[in-house]
């Protein structure tokens, strides 16, 4: 176990300015500030959630071809989701909800932020990023036999951008002028290229964006742990979560996604290249994806 004090480095904020003198173009690399141990209480413990993403059993990576059980090919640009409202439950049923537990899990390629326009001389982007470990602070000392967490953001925070908690940030995965015209968070987003089995690689591939959002898409995940996770004051315990991303597409046909392309996306170089969408424009499929986001988590184990 690691001592907590070595983890108290709270924030990483990198802001780099590159001046391309000939074009006068300014590029800013934006990294979100993450307060890992915001209001950390040293009399409590930290549980590190380590999320292992796989695709059809293979270790997940972006920009790599994967095949699902049916023989279709997927290649991903992005998987991001809000993991929130972590709860630990003791054998006697006593549940502890960890306040401010909102984490953005991501494995993605370069991301250009919404609002970037062809006419703009400034482009904001964030370099490729893999963030699959989160530190859940302020876990009261004790033995826990169950863990619960949500995929998405609960209505209190989803409905109100004036409230802040954990890593919630309207610059990240926020639904501000997109398919739902509902000012709230995108719960899960994945982007990539899909090629159906036997389809022509040049003409048959589709670029897709699949998203969930809206209060009805909020899903709780619960695991009973084979061995309890033990939280001790001032120490870090480990809890491994396994997420099988091929499960996201259970019962869904990427080539037949019927969602609509938000009007603003045409002007956004980050989004304009995609041609198949799953969102509230294809509500039944979005509900299915929200359910699949839950069942993509297949295992949790203390280690």
């Amino acid at each position, binding site marked *: 176990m690691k001592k907590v004090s070595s983890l108290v480095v709270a924030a990483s904020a990198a802001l780099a300015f590159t001046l391309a003198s000939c074009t006068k173009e300014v590029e800013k690399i934006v990294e979100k500030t993450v307060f890992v141990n915001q209001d950390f209480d040293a009399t409590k413990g930290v549980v590190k959630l380590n999320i292992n993403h796989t695709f059809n059993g293979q270790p997940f990576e972006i920009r790599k071809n994967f095949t699902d059980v049916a023989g279709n090919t997927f290649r991903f640009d992005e998987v991001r989701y809000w993991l929130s409202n972590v709860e630990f439950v003791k054998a006697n049923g006593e549940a502890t909800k960890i306040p401010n537990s909102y984490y953005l899990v991501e494995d993605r390629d370069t991301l250009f932020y919404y*609002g*970037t326009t062809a006419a703009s001389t400034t482009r*904001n982007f964030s370099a490729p990023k893999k963030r699959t470990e989160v530190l859940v602070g302020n876990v009261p000392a004790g033995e826990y036999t169950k863990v619960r967490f949500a995929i998405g953001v609960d209505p209190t925070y989803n409905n*109100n*951008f004036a409230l802040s908690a954990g890593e919630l940030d309207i610059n990240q995965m926020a639904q501000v002028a997109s398919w739902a*015209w*509902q000012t709230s968070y995108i719960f899960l987003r994945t982007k990539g290229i899909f090629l159906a089995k036997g389809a022509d690689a040049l003409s048959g591939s589709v670029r897709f964006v699949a998203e969930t959002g809206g209060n009805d898409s909020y899903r709780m995940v619960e695991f009973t742990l084979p061995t309890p996770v033990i939280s001790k004051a001032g120490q870090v315990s480990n809890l491994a979560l396994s997420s099988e991303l091929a499960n996201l597409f259970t019962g869904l046909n990427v080539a037949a996604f019927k969602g609509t392309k938000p009007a603003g996306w045409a002007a956004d170089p980050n989004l304009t290249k995609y041609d198949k969408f799953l969102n509230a*424009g294809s509500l039944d499929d979005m509900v299915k994806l929200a359910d699949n986001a839950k069942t993509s988590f297949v295992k949790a184990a203390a280690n």
Partner: protein
Amino acid sequence: MAVFINTFRHNNLKTVPALLLLLTLGMGACQPTEDIDPTTNDGVAELMKTPAHFPALPDVSYNRQTIEGVRLGRKLFFETSLSGNNQISCVTCHLQEKAFTDGVALTTKGQSGALLFRNTPGLTNLAWATNGLFWDGGATNLESLSIGPITHLDEMAQNILELPAELAAKENYVQLFDAAFPDEKATGITTPKVLKALAQYMRTLNSGNAKYDQFIQKTAQLTEAEQRGMAVFDAKCATCHQRSQHLFTDNVFHNNGLDSEFTDISHERAAQGRFRITFKNEDLGKYKTPTLRNLSFTAPYMHDGRFKTLEEVLNHYASGIKASPSLDTSLRDFTLSSQEKSDLLSFLKTLDDESFTKNKNFKSR
């Protein structure tokens, strides 16, 4: 004896703490604290008063109104730096003289010049609009609303990642934000603070001094036609445009029979009303009941601005209501005679409030 601790701020926003002792000498009443610095008397305190006959202000626990917050919000409301091309502000489409509407059915004044698909809603008595905002309720509160128009590429097209730095480089914004939000964990200018300040200001846009209000407060008389109109109103309109709290809305979403079909899913389902937020069939074609205050300044009418005049609106209710499964039950078998229409028009004009459309305190100075 009562002790009041007040903090007074000068124009340059250097804080000057002052301790004020008021000896009430057994009279027991709290004295209103007055701003001792005349240079800060910029009308903000005046804005924060609400009409006496209105309901109590709903508490906004996550964004309580302060003088400094409203002052900042008022400045931001006129701030063109909130847009991508630095040429568009909130007042581009929310004009005070038109009760914060823009006089056109659908505007093209956004950065892209593209036609928007909803009529610019007026900003009136929003502090009491606690059941969803936008025509379809897509925003839960004013804080969450403003980010929509600020970022939409066909509206203000601001990249919100750039916004804090843009404001920090301009005028005295850093001091204004520090003064408005001294207790926030995140220091300096942040986008949520921009949203909060704008919301605090918008909650001061209160209209409650029309002839109608003076009648309620017994300082004015209504004519006979106006009184007949009020009786028709109470019988036929007040179900949704509730008069009990003098707000002339129930803050609920209704299908008022403008269309019979809602199959058009283009433009992100704009023509489907609240359905596009809830995806419930019963919400097809429903839009939020707008207040009826200041109608003389807010033409054209309806969510898409389809009616140019109030006569057209009343003709719709008299003979143009289209049936559909989600049509409001109170509008089935609805009738309105010529006399009733004429009397209603007289009554509705008593809701025009020039002290609202001409209130200098709404303007930044």
